[in-house]
Each structure stands twice: as C-alpha cells, then as structure tokens.
C-alpha cells in the first residue's frame, strides 16, 4: 500500500514539476485539469506511466523518480501528442514509444549537462523529442486520417475578461497544452497557493515579456493573444525563483531574460514555422540554460546551491545557512596556544597576494598593540618568538625543513621565502603549510602522525619574515610555495565570542579552544537514546518523547513522532541543523540551542541565526519570506547564547521585523543531553533518560 502511494505521488509530482512545484496535491489538480481534454489527459497518463515503468525497469533510483525529475519531460511529450491526436491504440503506441525515447534522452542529457556544464536539462528533452515527433508525423498518414480531432475550449470566459487578462491565463494553460482561460485560472491559483514568489514571477514575467513584444510588433492585441508567451512565465519563474535565490538581483535577471527572450521567441517562431512545428519551450530552455550556465560560471552569489521544494523554502534555507555557516570546508584549528593577533589575512596588504592570497599570519601583541617589548631590535624582544607552534589538523607530516637560521630583525631571507616549515597532509584532501619556524626547533619528522595540538616546533623568524610570526596556508599539493586554497578556522574565541568556523579579520585577537571532553560527552547522542520530557504550559501538561534516529544519508535526528530535528557535531560545535515536520516542541529545542560550543567558559557568548519557520508559521511565515526576497536582511532572527554559571545557558532571540525580543533558558543535564528549557510560559523538563528502547 505504502509503495503504491509512493508511486502515485511520484506520478503526480511529474505533473506539478512542469510548473516547478514539488507538490503532489498541486500535481493532482493539474492532472485533473488535463482531463478537461480527455485525449490530452489520457495521453499524459499513458506517457507518464510508460516512462515511469521503463525507468523502474532500467533501475533508476527511487528517490530520483519520486521527484518526477526524469519523467516530466515524457509527460510533456505525451501531452504534445495527445494535443494533436485522438487516443487510439495506434496513438497510444506512438505515445509509449515517444515517452520512452524522451526518458532515455533525458537521462543522457542530464548526465552530460550536469557533468560538463553543471546545468539542469529543464524541458529541453521535450523540445527536442516533440519537435522530432512533429517533424516525423507529417509522414504518418495513418495517424492523420484517424486521429486528428477538433479541440473543445471553454472559451466563454474570454468574453468576460479583457484580452490582456485572458491572455495571461491562456498562456499559462498552454504550458500543459490547455490554452484555456479556465485552466489558466486553476493553474495560477495552484501556483499562488504553493508559492507567492512563483505567482508573482509568473505574472510579472508574462506582462514584461508581452508588453516588450507588443512594443516591438506594434500590436497589443496580437501580443496578448500569442499563447506561446508562456515562455516568459517559465523563464521568469525558473530564473527568479528556482535556480536563483529569490532576491531583487535575481528578479532583475529573470526579467532581463524575459525581455531578451522576446527576440529569441520571434526568431524561433519564424524558423520553426517553416517546418510546421511550434516553438514549444525552446526559447525558455535556451534563455534559462544560458543564464544558469553563465551565472554559475561567473560565481554569481545568488545561484541556489540547495533547491528546496518552493522558492520560499529555498530562501529560508539559504538565508539561515548563509548566516549560520560561514567559513569553508577546509577547516583547520589555529596553530598555537593563547591569544594571538591576526597580522595579515586573506588578500593581505603585504604578501598574501595572487596565488598565495589564502594565508594567515599571526603575531602576539601587548596592550599597546606592539609585537615586541623594549626597542624591538632583538629577536627575543618579540612576544611571538619561540612560542610553540601546534598542529592545526590531524594528519601526516609530509615535509619538514628546519635548518634555516632565524634572521636578525631588519633582514629577510629572499632565497628561502618559506623558511623553516612543516607541511601536513590532512586526509580530507589538502595540505597545510606552516612557515618561518625557529631554527632546529621542529620536533616532528616526515612520516609522523600528528593530532590537533601536537607540538610541531617554535615560532621563529626564518625565511621571508621581517619579524617573528606564524604563517599558515592550505594548499593542494605538498610542494613548497604551491598556490593556496581557501580555508577557515574552527573553534576559536575572539572578544569573548566563540566562533565555530570563520575567518578572523586583520587585527583581531584570537584564541583557539580545544574541545572539553566533559561537555562533549554531554552532547553525544547515540542511536536509540530516548529522552522523555514533560512539557508544562500554563495548566497544561504533556509528555514529549525524543528518540535518536539515523537518516539514510547518515545524519542523526531526534524523532518526536510529529517531526524530526537534525543535529550533529562538527569541529568543536554542536548544531541543530534543520527541522522537518511541524512539532512546536521540537521547534523549541531548535530555538533554545541552535548551536553550542563544546567548550565551557563562564560568560562566553556565541551567535547564530534561526530560520523563520522555527519562530513562526502559516501566513505570517509566507509573507515574511515573500518580502524577505526583496530585502534579505528583513527576516534576520538572531540568536545569542551565553554560558552562565554551572553550565546554564541563556539564549536571546531578537528580530526587529517580527518584533521578537525573547530569552530562553537552557540547563544541561549532569550526564547527557538537555535537562530543561524555559521559554515564555513553556517549561520542558527531562523526566527520564533511557539508553535504548529495548533496554
């Protein structure tokens, strides 16, 4: 039963996917709409089922099929045939054949596009196959004789609406070969319900394109009656809301795409009509793919890396994550102990340029920001001189140079720029080079395995070093002076704030922290651990049971029955990553402690950002996200955590827009987990902790 349900959902998703929605209810409505023309509806069903079955036969992964990703092109091809021909056994056969061809072509195109161009296929397979079919059918006399049929339209609505309104709805309907005002209205309602952003884009896209076309052709009536203008709707939605993060810049790009597509559309129509085939979605594919490719190539900041179900969710995820997770994947620890000052960061003003722009220099400064005592003419005057250099990563030492002299102040060694150094290979696939160590101070040798914090040597003044300092860089090879890669530092304190993964600025005084075992054990949640909480809200008392489970991708989450709260630890920080489902109490956990340093120091603070959905829901959430797309700072919900005495935590949640200024109190349990959460009138407290359900 469950399996059939899934398959039905997959089929329905193919329908909604055409309008860029991943929503099976919307899919069902669209499916119903196609049956206003039974031939069309039938053709669609045949196409989608045959494609789906063939895909299963080929063994295409279930998760992929579920999204309707591979099959919606087949569906479109099926619809394009159903639009031309009545359903007969012969047409059905023709549909099956075309549908399978489309599936195969989709898979191939997807593989090539995603590998070489890093772009999606959109409905390009449909354009290619349907155009091919339309060219081919001119030879299939048999089909023409039996299966051509007149179309019925609910054109009565057109009489009540001005042409510039009915034009929009008709174009919208045409996306599924239903050039009809009524269908268009249904579709636009579906879009509106699922995503306000897409709805806005569809409307603005259509009118921008059509008015442009009207100016170029000189006739508004012609422009608004041209149903192929659905291409504008698609371009606008796909660029403004799907592949780009909804933002003013993205919207601008979407409309630019729409405007120039008017020309492409006219050109294609002129050329294609010579062979008696419609333009289909070719202008849309051409413009959208070109833009996505170029924006990706140029590293446009608003290219969506993670596309969620709706533009709103993509935006919420993006906005929260871009603020929550700074830094990079090449994470290293600060290579020293105590408080050091950033002397030069990435793209530094002295030497961190060009190929070597991703590097950091550290010195020690005193209260008056000087790096030395006395007059600074002796190496020993410098605070950094002969201070221990510790390993920033876990890995193997691959290169050591240790015999170069420490330059006296005022001299540099131009021959051996990097001085005495240690290069360590981190198994995540990068090398870390630490330079300018003191002569003969290096205690590790090539081949040694080092842990984070292993003593490597002493800070010195060898190589191109005007004063004793530690230089650190991440590079792709073990070669000395190799070009550098971006990286970031984990687990450090600056101005009494804890940073999980970030890049300190020049002049910032930073101090590394090493995870505290006792607090790390508190936040270690093993599979099947169950926490039973009592929720007290005013007079109401409820039970809440959270069980640790693992998702197929290996991430762990707390399951409350109504929702899933994903968590994890990374390099000294505990995180709640995201929340699925609708459980108000799970949201409270997220809100109370979105992250926590695995290091305790009284008074230590840290910052995080909360997704809109954790704080509010329903219409309010949708509206906030809609308006946030115009101003990304709008939905700024900040969290500031602070360690109080005895490992208690106070969280402050503030948002200007939402007018939130709340405090949440969290207490950690003596052994494991969260003991209590107090937020407004809700109090959650741990009743019982069970190691495993069976035990």
């Amino acid at each position: 039963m469950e399996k059939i349900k899934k398959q039905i959902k997959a089929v329905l998703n193919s329908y909604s996917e055409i309008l860029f929605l991943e929503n099976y209810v919307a899919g069902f409505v669209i499916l119903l709409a196609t049956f206003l023309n039974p031939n069309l509806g039938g053709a669609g069903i045949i196409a989608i089922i045959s494609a789906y079955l063939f895909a299963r036969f080929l063994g295409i992964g279930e998760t992929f099929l579920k999204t309707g990703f591979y099959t919606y092109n087949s569906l479109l091809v099926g619809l394009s045939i159903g639009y031309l021909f009545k359903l007969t056994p012969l047409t059905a056969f023709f549909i099956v054949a075309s549908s399978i061809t489309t599936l195969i072509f989709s898979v191939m195109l997807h593989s090539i596009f995603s590998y070489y161009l890093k772009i999606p296929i959109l409905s390009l397979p449909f354009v290619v196959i349907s155009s091919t079919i339309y060219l081919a059918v001119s030879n299939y006399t048999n089909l023409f004789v039996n299966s051509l049929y007149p179309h019925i339209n609910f054109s009565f609505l057109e009489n009540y609406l001005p042409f510039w309104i009915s034009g929009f709805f008709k174009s919208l309907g045409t996306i599924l070969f239903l050039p009809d005002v009524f269908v268009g209205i249904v579709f636009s309602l579906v879009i509106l319900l699922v995503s306000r952003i897409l709805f806005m884009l569809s409307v603005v896209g259509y009118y921008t394109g059509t008015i442009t076309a009207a100016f170029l052709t000189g006739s508004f009536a012609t422009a608004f009656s041209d149903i192929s203008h659905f291409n504008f709707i698609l371009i606008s939605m796909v660029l403004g809301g799907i592949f780009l993060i909804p933002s003013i810049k993205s919207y601008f790009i979407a409309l630019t795409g729409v405007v120039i597509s008017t020309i492409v559309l006219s050109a294609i129509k002129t050329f294609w009509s010579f062979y008696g085939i419609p333009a289909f979605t070719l202008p849309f594919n051409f413009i959208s793919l070109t833009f996505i490719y170029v924006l990706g190539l140029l590293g446009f900041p608003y290219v969506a890396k993670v596309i969620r179900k709706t533009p709103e969710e993509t935006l919420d995820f993006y906005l929260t994550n871009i603020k929550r997770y700074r830094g990079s994947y090449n994470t290293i620890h600060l290579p020293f102990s105590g408080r050091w000052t950033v002397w030069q960061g990435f793209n530094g003003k002295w030497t961190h340029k060009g190929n070597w722009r991703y590097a950091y220099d550290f010195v020690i400064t005193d209260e008056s920001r000087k790096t030395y005592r006395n007059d600074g003419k002796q190496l020993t005057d410098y605070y950094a001189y002969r201070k221990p250099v510790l390993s920033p990563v876990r890995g193997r030492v691959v290169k050591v140079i240790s015999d170069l002299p420490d330059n006296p102040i005022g001299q540099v060694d131009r021959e051996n720029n990097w001085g005495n150094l240690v290069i360590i290979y981190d198994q995540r696939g990068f090398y870390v080079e630490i330079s300018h160590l003191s002569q003969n101070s290096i205690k590790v040798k090539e081949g040694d395995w080092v842990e984070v914090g292993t003593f490597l040597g002493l800070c010195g003044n060898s190589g191109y070093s005007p004063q004793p300092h530690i230089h650190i860089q991440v590079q792709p090879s073990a070669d000395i002076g190799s070009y550098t890669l971006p990286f970031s530092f984990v687990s450090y304190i600056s101005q009494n704030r804890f940073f999980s993964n970030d890049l300190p600025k020049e002049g910032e005084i930073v101090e590394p922290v090493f995870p505290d075992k006792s607090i790390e054990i508190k936040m270690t949640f093993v599979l099947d651990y169950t926490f039973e909480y009592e929720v007290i809200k005013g007079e109401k008392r409820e039970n809440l049971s959270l069980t640790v489970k693992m998702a197929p991708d290996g991430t762990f989450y707390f399951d409350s029955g109504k929702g899933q709260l994903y968590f994890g630890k990374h390099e000294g920080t505990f995180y709640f990553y995201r929340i699925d489902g609708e459980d108000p109490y799970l949201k409270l956990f997220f809100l109370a402690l979105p992250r926590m340093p695995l290091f305790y120091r009284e008074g230590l603070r840290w910052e995080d950002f909360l997704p809109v959905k954790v704080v509010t829901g329903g219409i309010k959430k949708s509206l906030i996200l809609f308006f946030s797309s115009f101003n990304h700072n709008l939905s700024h919900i900040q969290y500031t955590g602070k360690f109080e005495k005895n490992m208690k935590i106070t969280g402050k949640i503030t948002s200007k827009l939402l007018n939130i200024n709340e405090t949440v109190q969290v207490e950690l349990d003596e052994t494991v987990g969260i003991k209590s959460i107090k937020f407004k009138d809700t109090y959650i407290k741990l009743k019982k902790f069970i190691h495993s359900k069976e035990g």
Partner: protein
Amino acid sequence: MKKIYQKPVITKLQTGFMNKFGSSPLYARKVRTDIDGVPISELVEKFGSPLFVISEKQLREKYRQIYSAFTNRYPNVQFGWSYKTNYLKAVCAVLHQEGAIAEVVSEFEYEKARNMGIEGKDIIFNGPHKTINALKRAALEGAKIHIDHFDEITDLEHIADEIGKQIKVAIRINMDTGIHPQWDRFGFNLETGQALDAVKRIASGGKLVLNGLHCHIGTFILEPEAYGKEVEKMVKFAYEIEDNFGFKIEYLDIGGGFPSKNRLKGTYLPPDVAVPPVEEFAEKITDSLYSNLRPGDFPKLILETGRAIVDEAGYLITTVFASKRLPDGRKAYIADAGVNLLFTAFWYKFNIEIDREVQGSNEPSVIYGPLCMNIDIIDEGTMLPPLKRGTRLIFSPVGAYNNTQWMQFIEYRPNVVMVMEDQTVEIIREKEDLSDIERRERLPDRLKIK
C-alpha cells in the same frame, strides 16, 4: 644657605669594576618622585607615612605577562591566586577579575575566599592543617581539595560517608627535582613510593575520586629546569595512575615558587641578572609537557604563582625620622617603618629609592626601623647620600608576604592604598588605631584601674 656640617669619612674607591652596588658607588642615585604618576609627596600628605602603595596597573600587567607566557605556550592553563601572599581584598579582587581562581591553605583563607564571592569549585584547598569542618564545607561546595597526608584521606572518607557522595580530590606529592632544599614536608613523597601508596589507598577506599596532582617544589626558585623535571615526573605519575587505577587526572597543579625581581640577601648579582625571566620558566615547563604528554591530551595546568605576580606591584614609603653616626663610622637612619611592616626584610635586600635629588657623595649607611628592638634593621649596609630628616625612602618590591605577615608590634599598622589605573588613589586597608587593637581584649572588672 648654611652648609650642613658633615663629619668627614673615608670610603674605599671602587671604579671600573663590577661591584655589589651595581653602578658608581659614590654618585649613583635612585630617585623616585612618583608611583604610576602620583607624586610621593601627595601620597604621604594624604595618607601619612609609612604607607604601603600597591599599583593596580603593575599588578595587572604582571599577571597578564606571566599568564600569557604560559597560555601562549599551552592551551589549558589556570592560575590560582595564592592568598597567603597577599590577601587584601582589593588585591584578590584584581586578580580574580583577571581570571585567577583562589588558592587557600587554611580554614580562615577558605572563608576569606568564599566571602570574596568565589565559588567552592574555584577554590584550591591546600595546606597541612584542614579542620574537619573546613574539609566538610569544601567537599560540599566542590572545592579542589589537595590531600597532604594519610590522616586527611581518612578524614575525607568519613566526610564522604556522611554527605553520601564521592568526593573529587587531588594529592600533593613531593619529589627530587635536583634543587636544594628539597621540600619534602608537604604531601606524599614520589621516589619512595609513598605517593603511589596514597593512590592505592584512595582507590581501595572507593569513596574518593582522584582527579588531580599537586606539587610545590619550593620557593624563590632560580632554576627553571627544576620545573621541567617536576612536570616530567608529574605527567609520568599521572599516566601511571590513569593506566593502573582508572582515575582521570584532569589537572596538574605545579604550585608556585617563581621568583620576583627581588634580591635575596647574599646574592651578588642584581636581580635583573640573577632572576631568569618568566619566559624561561614557561618554556621549560611547556617543553616538558609537550615531550611527556600523549598527543591530543591537554590536562589543565594550574599554577599558584603568588610572589612573582604581586611583589613588584608593592611599595613602602617611609620617612627618615632621625639620623645618627655609628661608632664604626657608618651613617645610620631611623625610618618610621621596620621589620614590623616588612617581614620580608629578613631575607630580601630591597631596592631603596629616595623621593628627591640629594647633594653629596654616597656613604655606607644602615637603615633601622622604629622598633625598640635590636633586630629591627631594614638594611645593614647600603650606599646613600646624606639624607635630611623628612626625606622619604621608598622600598620595593614589597607586594608579597608583607601585608599578610606584618605584625602589630609596638607600632600601629599604616594605610595601604592602591593607585588605580586611572591614577586615582583608594585606601584598601585603613590604618589602625587603638580601638582595633583593643577591640578583642577583655579586661576583668577587678583589674580595672579605678
């Protein structure tokens, strides 16, 4: 102006050689007109003489200098402020603000720390005499209790039974680190196996949880390598305990004993030469940690440095009350402060500064205190120019051990002020008057003088 008559004296001429006075013996002057910008004259005018002056700025700077010498070498460092060195509230408060926890050695000091607002968990409880009451309170409040002897183990086990929970403890150990005298009266001896016996005893009792080691190798130690030895032995012992008894040694308290820039009597070289910089101690200690600790293991390193932090922040301003000529020809001055206030005068030769420029050549001089006691000598022989009555002499460093070991004997104890970082001056201990001394006295009625 009429020239003051000076009796002619003959002084041996020493030139061009290194000498025990550091510089030209005849004309060298050390003049100090202010402390952190506050004129000596103003201080005396407002707060009287003698006067203890503690510089907040120098206290903080010294703390930070020593602290960063360690934290910039090892990531898990905690300082414990040794109360007995100077437990004036203002001094403790400054150091607690800087991040130090409290190190106390008696019930009195424990109460003092708690009264300062320091939580039990932030108190290190050392000392050979911990009363049952004090131990119980410390156990309940989660203090770091450092056991000194087997009897204390028994005491603590009784308390554990009484309060119904295991008590976290550390043991004090003593060892040979190559220096003399070897401090062997505190804790359990390592080399004879006594320390291991203590661990066995604790493990077999099952009521105490051993989570730290403490050692204090001595005082005013001028040999950094001794600490390297100490750390090496402690780390090895910690691993021996962890591997064999299942205890996790969370911290190593290596005690204190670091010297200040003071001059021990009988040392020929000036302290700038004789006393190794704190960097050298830090380097030896952390070197030894890195070469003996297992990778990725960073137990907390606790230091109880007292003297090295506070000594140089303290000054004593005194006034020349009278002068005389001794039969052997030496000049003698009577100052208004003596060993009653400067306990450390018994072993230090202080840096003596004059508050003004003085004409005339130096001659060997003795400085006596105000007590009617033969032992009241602050300096038995120093080179000073002829000083008028009323000249101020500034003794330093006097921040350590004087404000705790001074005595009310013959004279009242004077004001102690702190020159704050913004150059304002605050009294941190008011001068005594008769009522302070008589407050605790009871005179039986029949003895009252009618």
